[in-house]
């Protein structure tokens, strides 16, 4: 079976803890061409969209769920929203948890909205990443 509207509400187990390192933050800021000094000082914070590195772990659960039959090479990321309660910073150990918010079927394609909550080890919410994906199922020949 493929993904249906009834999959809304499906929640995946928390991902393995992710350790935010100064080296990864620096690498990410450099990839954005961003020389903001806050990304390179003694205790750097991460660029806001560094949250994507962590939510990608949770997306792997979604795209790897055999029941949904989502194939990454037929997925287009259509929109992305972040809500930040505080910055991610080096030394943080964070956990991502994904829930499917909504599934809409349109002309045979699927629009999947999912929220990833990124929390610290005390379950304090740091950031929420909400994404919508457009998935075109494989056309059977």
């Amino acid at each position, binding site marked *: 079976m493929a993904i249906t509207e009834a999959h809304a509400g499906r929640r995946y187990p928390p991902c393995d803890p992710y350790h935010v390192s100064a080296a990864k933050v620096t690498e990410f800021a*450099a990839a954005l061409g961003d020389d*903001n000094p806050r990304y390179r000082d003694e205790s750097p914070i991460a660029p806001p969209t560094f949250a*994507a590195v962590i939510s990608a772990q949770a997306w792997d659960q979604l795209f790897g769920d055999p029941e949904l039959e989502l194939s990454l090479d037929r997925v287009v*990321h259509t929109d992305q929203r972040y*809500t930040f309660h505080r*910055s991610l910073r080096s030394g943080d150990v964070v956990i991502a948890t994904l829930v499917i918010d909504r599934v809409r079927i349109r002309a045979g394609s699927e629009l999947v909205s999912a929220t990833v909550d990124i929390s610290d080890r005390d379950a304090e919410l740091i950031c929420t990443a909400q994404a919508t994906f457009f998935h075109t199922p494989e056309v059977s020949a």
Partner: protein
Amino acid sequence: MKATVVEGVEVGTQLPSLVARFTRERLVRYAGASTDFNPIHYSEHFAKRAGLPDVIAHGMLTMGTALRVVTNWVGDPSRVTSYFVRFTRPVVVPDDADGVEVQFNASVAAIEGSLVTVSIEAICNGQKVLGAARAEVDLGIRVPHRDHEY
């Protein structure tokens, strides 16, 4: 903490624009840094198989670069409280030394207390590649209402 921008902030205030150049090298760097190794971002073979004209930039690279306009302006990136973009058009990156230029423009769309909403546009080859892009920043102090006195 001290806000770096307060004076002169009003709806319509333009932020300094930013021009970024996306090359294949930049895409490879972003792939490694973000761990997004979807081959449509480095291989023409896979991009074409996915129905694209050529290799395209990661939407998140465009999104992350666009936010630099805002964080450059406020100084402290931790002031960003929310950020939304719609990916409306792919940024095609040719396999040459120059890559492609993306221009980011932004202006203040709303002010409520210390919360400032910035509207961002991203233009590549004359076309908008992001839709409805908005970031909200908390300047941490109340932005004074500026009455125009004549």
